């Protein structure tokens, strides 16, 4: 469960400071599927970075379960990201020189698993997203939808508490978008993880249990 209390995040741009999020308080219960919407520059990516332990707030607290992400050091934040949080990006962010299986294995590297276990878990994860026959393919040999499936497998292979998806269908056509959303939704239902999706696409947002809008750094619950 996420608990954000009076969270403000400010950035310095040249000589002035910009408030990306202002005094945001929100709770996200475990197992919820949440869509975050809002205009470009409204603060939704900043919120995702705070939830993903990639940034610390300028003020306020971000708590994930028992961990206060606002005060932990870099090493502990990295450990939380390694064990509890999965990421899916709009641009897939696969490592171009690694095969699909090796890309998925990168998420297991920080957990200190043996190579054989890493390989078998990565193969299982790819099979669960329908890419059991594409283990040795490089990202450049896969379609956009397949690359996003690899990214989802990479995010889920470590069995995280939370899956954060930043515009996961932004680079896909409608048909592939629906396939990916079907996949994410079924994984969410099967695993019971917390799924938080940042999206511009209302068709994607509508599939969420809860919709949150961010505009000018403020959070509004959508109907």
């Amino acid at each position, binding site marked *: 469960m996420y608990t954000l209390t009076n969270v403000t995040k400010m950035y310095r741009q040249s000589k002035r400071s910009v408030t990306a999020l202002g005094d945001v308080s929100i709770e996200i219960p475990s197992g919820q599927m949440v869509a975050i919407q809002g205009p470009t520059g409204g603060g939704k990516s900043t919120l995702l*970075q705070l939830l993903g332990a990639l940034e610390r707030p300028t003020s306020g607290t971000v708590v994930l379960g028992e961990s206060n992400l606002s005060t932990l050091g870099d090493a502990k934040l990295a450990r939380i990201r390694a064990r509890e949080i999965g990421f899916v990006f709009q*641009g897939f962010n696969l490592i171009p*020189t690694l095969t699909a299986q090796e890309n998925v294995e990168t998420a297991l590297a920080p957990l200190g698993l043996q190579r054989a276990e890493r390989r078998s878990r990565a193969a299982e994860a790819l099979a669960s997203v329908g890419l059991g026959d594409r283990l040795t393919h490089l990202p450049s040999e896969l379609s956009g939808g397949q690359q996003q499936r690899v990214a989802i497998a990479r995010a889920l292979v470590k069995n995280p508490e939370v899956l954060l998806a930043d515009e996961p269908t932004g680079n896909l056509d409608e048909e592939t978008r629906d396939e990916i959303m079907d996949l994410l939704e079924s994984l969410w239902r099967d695993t019971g993880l917390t799924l938080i999706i940042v999206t511009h696409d209302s068709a994607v947002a509508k599939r969420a249990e809860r919709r949150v809008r961010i505009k000018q750094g403020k959070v509004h619950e959508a109907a």
Partner: protein
Amino acid sequence: MFATYLFREISNRRKQTTIIAIGLALAIALVIIVNGVAAGVKSAQSSILASIYGVGTDVTVSEEAAVPGEGEGPPRFEFGSDDGATTDGTTALSQTRLSAGFGTATFDASALDAVTAVDNVTAATATLDLTNSSFSGEMPDFSQGMPQMGDGQSPPVGGADGAGGSAFSIDSFTVTGIDVGGAAVGPLTSTSLVDGRGFAASDAGATVAVLDSTYATTAELGVGDTIAIADTDFEIVGLVSSTSADATTAANSYIPLDVAQSLSALDGQVSTIFVTAASSSDIGQIQTDIQAALPEAKVSTQADLASSVSGSLTTASDLVSNLGTWLSVIVLGAAFLIAILFTISGVSRRTREFGTLKAIGWSNARIVRQVAGESLVQGLIGGALGVALGLGGLLIVNAVAPTLSASSSVAPAAQGMFGPPQATQAAAATTEIALQAPVTAEIIAIAVGLAVLGGVLAGVVGGWRAARLRPAEALRSVA
């Protein structure tokens, strides 16, 4: 994961790997070649010094020749009016001198006792360096023709061409007097016997000679023949050659010291003392002690002798130690810079990749290790290429084997004034030697060390850059 990721990056980012590896390879090859040539030049210097001064000689003692006074100069051949035999209007003249060469000083042989008495001197021997010069010629009998040179009179006849002309020949070669019962140090220690035998203690006082084999070939002499030194026939008992390839020995001929002193009218005189120290650490003290015992003497160590060597060997040495070293440093610096800049550029290009890895839980240390590992392997590839290139370069140097010449300005051998080229060469202690650049484990170790250093430097800088990346960069790129 580390090895897999590293292998994939190295093999898939070939352009960067190739550029970094080639840059380092060129630099390392240059370092290997410069080091190899430097070692070859050093070896050539040692070899030449040994051929001139003998193996085991740590210190030499000689004396500076006095500046010639007015009317003094090189020894001259002087003939009286009654000298020579006259036949058919032609007077034949000949004269031989055995003397210390012009510019060579001799000193009392008791200096050897003073040197031997110095602490930590394990062996010392004295030599007398001489030049045997022979003049022979034919000229017309002027005593008959000159007074009659008047109107209608014929010019003098006779001489070498029968028409009043003259002809002269002047020959000289170097002779070194050796203490045949003395210590095993001195010029003959760097020679090997080619034919016959060397000196024995029983040769003292005997008219026996050992010849430099190169000179013997030129003079068409061999063991069993005789050679005239100061109008005295010496039996040639042995031929020696320098142990260093292509080098001649210090003198053209060697005779017992006591005979040399007697024939040159330099009884009790020597020109050089060769000294061996107990250990290399004693050389400085021995030099100081000998100088104190013999204030007039010129006491030289191997280092002093090396500085007295001139010629293309010295030019090569200077070239290697100056241009070569600086060129290596500059190219190495440039290669390191290229490796660092390319690594930084690679890290910048992979910002999103590293941001993604950080987002999925990779620690800074793991990412730094990955970047450093890639750079190290690129460095090692460059090192392997560089070693191959460098060894190829040394192979070419050794195949070409450029000839270097060296001459010593303080050579113990007497300076010859005349004579055939071979005699002059030996007399001036000029030696030619083919450069051979050795390949040593030390040079290979330096190359590998430099490759590792280049890789580590690039890796540390690149890793530091990657560690400074904020993980949010991965998300920002699509925000």
